[in-house]
């Protein structure tokens, strides 16, 4: 049992690192996965007898490499020449023979392998823009997160066979289209980093959205996204948006326990702030402060700063809406879309400028742009309610309820509708 737990711990912690090296060396996702599985099977077979090695990750890495060498040696005797391995990069070019020469010193060699950080290559390959987005998400979780296909399927509420199929298609696309296993050149790094950030944030949001699904699985997804965010900061510390994204996720996650109470959705305003995780808020805030000092604020840093202002307010009344409105206006300059405009308008209203805010909400939705977006109607309804314009508020709540798909959210809106109706 102890061994089982040790193996599981290594699997979770070291999966990304080990698989990333194996993919580079073997030139294939499938071969890397096979070697990895065999290595874990070997661990389960030998550790109970010989004990858990002092560096289990290095042991698995060395064993997986040996498995791969054995396999390619067998394949080589079968064929005259070995097929060129696509992912074998010129930076190292180690062949099976070279690895064999040092295999006796496997621990030392394995430690070296751990030092080559292939995880960044893996991250950029999984999140290559030529890969469909749902495939990027699935592959990132499978490869870097070490989640099983079953776990990913459960998290995204799709049948396991569908998820397995999706993973097969993605790996095939990468191999067949010749998507390189490399860190993009400096000229593309910023643009490609955006895709990686998007995928990590989508994983987080999938876990954070208060929709249906196993709560435990959803928490895991958030934890995984944060772990990936930390990895991204560690690997690419020069991009301040990486720290901005990490801070944003940490700050949201710190409040997750307050969001649902007795199966009901609780708004930020009504949440029990004592269940918010103070240490996490402190971590997110200090991360943000240090990165904002670089004076290069991007969308994630700005959203992180907004989340920090909400999280730091001891009571809803202490929320610095004026500052939040300023941050949204800055965000709108970078991302001029109607949803950001709507959030900006709400912040303006909440800072006390009700009429201005309401006018800006209507401007954000001008031309029916947000007509099908339930949060537009919900936000409008909420501001009208606060302005005691109950008839109009009731109408807007009605429209929001029609459009909302999440049962928790619908229930919440219905409650609000009843309360404004009783006031008129």
């Amino acid at each position: 049992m102890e061994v089982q737990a040790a193996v599981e711990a290594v699997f979770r912690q070291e999966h990304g690192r080990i698989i990333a090296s194996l993919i580079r060396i073997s030139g294939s996702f499938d071969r890397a996965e096979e070697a990895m599985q065999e290595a874990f099977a070997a661990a389960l077979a030998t550790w109970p007898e010989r004990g858990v090695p002092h560096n289990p990750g290095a042991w698995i890495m060395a064993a997986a490499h040996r498995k791969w060498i054995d396999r390619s040696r067998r394949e080589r005797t079968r064929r005259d020449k070995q097929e060129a391995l696509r992912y074998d990069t010129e930076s190292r070019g180690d062949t099976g023979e070279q690895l064999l020469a040092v295999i006796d010193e496997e621990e030392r060699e394995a430690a070296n392998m751990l030092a080559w950080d292939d995880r960044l290559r893996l991250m950029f390959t999984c999140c290559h823009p030529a890969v469909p987005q749902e495939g990027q998400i699935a592959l990132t979780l499978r490869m870097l997160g070490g989640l099983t296909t079953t776990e990913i399927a459960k998290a995204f509420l799709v049948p396991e066979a569908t998820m397995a199929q999706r993973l097969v298609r993605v790996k095939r696309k990468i191999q067949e289209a010749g998507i390189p296993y490399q860190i993009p050149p400096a000229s593309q790094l910023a643009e490609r980093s955006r895709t990686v950030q998007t995928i990590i944030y989508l994983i987080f949001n999938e876990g954070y959205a208060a929709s249906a699904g196993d709560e435990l699985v959803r928490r895991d997804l958030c934890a995984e996204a944060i772990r990936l965010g930390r990895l991204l900061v560690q690997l690419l510390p020069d991009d301040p948006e990486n720290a901005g994204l990490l801070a944003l996720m940490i700050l949201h996650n710190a409040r997750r326990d307050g969001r649902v109470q007795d199966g009901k959705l609780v708004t930020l305003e009504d949440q029990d702030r004592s269940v918010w995780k103070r240490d996490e808020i402190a971590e997110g805030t200090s991360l943000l402060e240090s990165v904002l000092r670089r004076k290069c604020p991007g969308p994630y840093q700005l959203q992180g700063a907004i989340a920090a202002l909400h999280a730091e307010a001891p009571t809803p009344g202490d929320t610095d809406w004026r500052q939040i409105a300023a941050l949204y206006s800055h965000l709108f300059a970078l991302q001029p879309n109607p949803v950001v405009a709507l959030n900006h308008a709400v912040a303006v209203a909440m800072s006390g400028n009700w009429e201005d805010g309401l006018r800006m909400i209507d401007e954000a939705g001008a031309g029916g742009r947000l007509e099908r977006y339930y949060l537009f109607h919900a936000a409008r309804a909420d501001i009208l309610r606060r302005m005691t314009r109950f008839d109009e508020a009731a109408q807007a709540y009605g429209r929001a309820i029609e459009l909302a798909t999440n049962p928790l959210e619908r229930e919440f809106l219905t409650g609000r509708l009843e309360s404004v109706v009783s006031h008129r």
Partner: protein
Amino acid sequence: MRYLLLIYTDENSTEQATPDDVARISRAHSETIEDAVRRGVLVGLDKLKPTVTATTVRMDTSGALITDGPFAETKEQLAGYYMIDCADLDQAIEWAKRIPTGCQPGEGCIEIRPIQEIRKPSGLGK
């Protein structure tokens, strides 16, 4: 790896191209071609005549069904191709970015298709 870069463009719009547009587009092609040749990347390229000249042949059980025009009506039409030989998709994307696809920004696009290598008969024409 070999890639086929398919150039899709809106024929209606290219028909109305001004002499300036034409000059700009052919200059961009020339520069791309020269550079690709210099780097030993270019395998081949061609420009296609417009889709009004296209003929589609479909064989079914009763014989050949021959129709006028391309097999699918689309907003943008296949206008030509480059075939390049480069290391990976990222390099192919970089080349694709340099191929002009229309008169206005945002007009037309390049579809990148990796070539599936097959055994070819000897004595193929050029």
